[in-house]
């Protein structure tokens, strides 16, 4: 990034903070719209306590473990489904129906069965990230060049060898894209589970701060979630780039 751009961005951020301060000092919404100074000092007070950091840890932990679980299960399921046309057609309608339905829909069911626990949050994240990873993996496996597959077979490679040397590498860009999209979703779903389902972490913190009228703390936690969101998006992008910089389709897409 050019220095001029950085300066402009910094001025923009500063301007937004000043605007926030001005609007909040007009007291249009009473206490419900705290100033940035109040928010940041509440955040500093929160950050000096252990419970804040354990909430951050729980949020990040649940999101990452959920993502990890759905990656493992989703890639495996995607390979199984994608390798057999019969299974692919059998699951097509089901997957297409379920894909656009967000995980928040089954939140009441999970809370009912598991209660407001970390397991409930984890399961919601797992389910929320699972379908996009499955469908993208299927697409990737399906996209494997049949010539490459035949060549491998004619060289006497076995099924597992073909899977690891031909099918998986060519499905990699699809899986990489799915993971990049899924990473921020994992964080979002963790917050949903905490805010609406009472799962531990910052989502629950938002609910408590809002219902107890501790608005500076509410805004502070939203700021922290924004920063976590930036980190998740940034790391997912960097990871995809690092993993796939060699791949021609990625180079093409990146231009």
């Amino acid at each position: 990034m050019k220095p001029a751009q950085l300066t402009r961005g910094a001025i923009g951020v500063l301007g937004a903070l000043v605007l926030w301060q001005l609007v909040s000092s007009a007291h249009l919404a009473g206490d419900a719209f705290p100033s940035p100074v109040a928010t940041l000092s509440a955040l500093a007070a929160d950050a000096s306590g252990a419970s804040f950091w354990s909430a951050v840890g729980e949020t990040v932990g649940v999101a990452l473990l959920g993502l990890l679980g759905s990656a493992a299960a989703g890639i495996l399921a995607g390979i199984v489904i994608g390798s057999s046309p019969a299974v692919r057609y059998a699951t097509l309608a089901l997957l297409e129906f379920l894909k656009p339905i967000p995980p928040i829909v089954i939140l009441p069911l999970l809370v009912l069965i598991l209660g407001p626990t970390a397991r409930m949050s984890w399961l919601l994240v797992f389910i929320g990230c699972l379908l996009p990873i499955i469908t993208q993996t299927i697409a990737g496996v399906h996209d494997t060049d049949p010539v490459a597959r035949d060549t491998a077979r004619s060289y006497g490679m076995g099924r597992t060898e073909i899977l690891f040397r031909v099918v998986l590498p060519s499905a990699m860009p699809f899986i990489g894209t799915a993971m990049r999209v899924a990473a921020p979703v994992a964080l979002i779903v963790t917050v949903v589970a905490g805010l609406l389902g009472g799962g531990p972490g910052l989502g629950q913190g938002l609910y408590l701060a809002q219902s107890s009228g501790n608005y500076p703390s509410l805004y502070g936690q939203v700021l922290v979630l924004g920063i976590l969101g930036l980190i998740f998006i940034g790391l997912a992008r960097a990871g995809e780039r690092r993993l796939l910089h060699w791949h021609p389709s990625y180079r093409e897409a990146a231009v």
Partner: protein
Amino acid sequence: MRKTLYVLLGVGTPVVLLAAWFVASAGSTNTFFPPLSYILERFQELWLFAHFSSDILVSLLNLVIGFALAAVIGVGLGFVLAMLPKVGGYVDPVIHFFRSIPPVALVPIFVSLIGFGIEMRIASITLAAVFPTLIATVDGLRGVDSTLKDVSAVYRLSTGEKIIRVFLPAAGPHIASGLQVSLQTAFVVMIASEMLGPSQGIGAMTLLAQQSFMIADMWSGIILLGVIGFIANMLFELGRRRLLAWYIGSRRLARAQ
């Protein structure tokens, strides 16, 4: 022969699964998994049409209004920012920060500002859903080929023609992907805004049923929300395919070569 088998599998599997659910749950005494027949009965009693105008219509209206506002604001603001690159440089980081905030986290803020009413829900949906469209519009416009800009200048198109007939269609595929994410965000925030606090709406009804252990009612709410999520996305996809037929066709051709 093989094709027919695949079509049969495609249509047959969901039917078989539904039938299996129906049969397996028929005599169920499990609290969490009541018989499907009973769930469907409650579905009919609740949604067709006792709570149609009091809850379904309210939810859908919030969704449609919030999404429409987000779409108009997102595309409009996106045009302004992309056409004024200097201004864009100032606000880019702030916009990306807002986009990174999990959208549902905005709901408690709006609750604290304007309470639990309809305005809160529409405001939450709009603000959360505006960013995907806004960012996609700016990206799409910044990516418009410089040759197309030169062509528009050489043939002396008016500013209005450039915007409506060149920039908008050229950025169309980007804008459409942004709108699709915005629609999904709007749907999630619609449900979240109804679940957070005592109010009307399908989300509120579903959560209330869960809290009062009316499990079949909860299931019927889940099914209704799932169907709405699916249909909303399908309608969007149909519109996208119609408007962007040129793009989908050219991409398919490019891949085939």
